[in-house]
């Protein structure tokens, strides 16, 4: 099974990398982009025995820093 985990910065947390990407897009002449936020995408390959609770614990304990980040789990 494949589970996709998306880790994103909480709204309100300044994202310097997203800002740099935004500037670069403007530099390339793309207008109309109002904001850019950068996150992480983590793909897990696992057996059926891995529960939703396990996946949630993985996110809380290691994959996301919940002080600054949110996470979203898409079970495959």
């Amino acid at each position: 099974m494949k589970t996709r985990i998306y880790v994103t910065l909480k709204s309100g947390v300044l994202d310097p990398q997203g800002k740099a990407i935004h500037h670069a897009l403007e530099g390339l002449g793309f207008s109309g982009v109002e904001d850019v936020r950068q996150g992480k995408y983590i793909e897990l390959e696992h057996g059926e025995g891995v529960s939703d609770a396990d996946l949630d614990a993985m996110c809380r304990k290691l994959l996301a820093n919940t002080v600054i980040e949110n996470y979203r789990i898409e079970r495959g």
Partner: protein
Amino acid sequence: MKSAVIVFPGSNCDRDLAVAIEEVTGRAPTMLWHRETELPDGVDLVAVPGGFSYGDYLRSGAMAARSPVMNAVVRAAERGVPILGVCNGFQILTEAGLLPGALMRNAGLSFVCRPVALTVENSQSIFTNRYDAGEAITIPVAHHDGNYTADAETLDRLEGEGRVAFRYAEQVNGSARGIAGIVNGAGNVLGMMPHPERMIGPEHGGSDGRRLFEGLLEAVA
């Protein structure tokens, strides 16, 4: 003073810290591999060094904070043992939950490596008792992820409780309220991005970092 320096895969400031501690205290620290589960008996100081533990993969300090030795460090912190985290060590202490907030990518997106001017905000802690409150000192930084972030309530609490130990006197990395170093509520855990171990004598260009170790030695003696 009996001390221990934790060694993680990828740490590269562990020896700098050990040399500084030995030079100031006269006793070499125990170098403790991250897979150890116990600290040396009667340890007076645990130092968590700088330098890209686990290659900064996932997030700076994220994997080091979950290594076996950190359980022992957290227990020691709860017993009141002084814990010093420098640079990646500061990142590890926040990831381990010993200090609030998080360290993000520098606002300028550059790796910053140079001596910086700091203001000592609190001279009452075991780490800062050899400084004067409001004193200007210079200690080098070398980091890519030193942008201290916490919610406004946490920042207000840190300021209100006098837990900001050092503040940048100049803009360095975008840190909230210019915070360069903080202590925990009990005052026995300090995390700071600048490297005091790199400023312990004239050959380093100054000794402003040395007083941190001297103050600790005095506090635990």
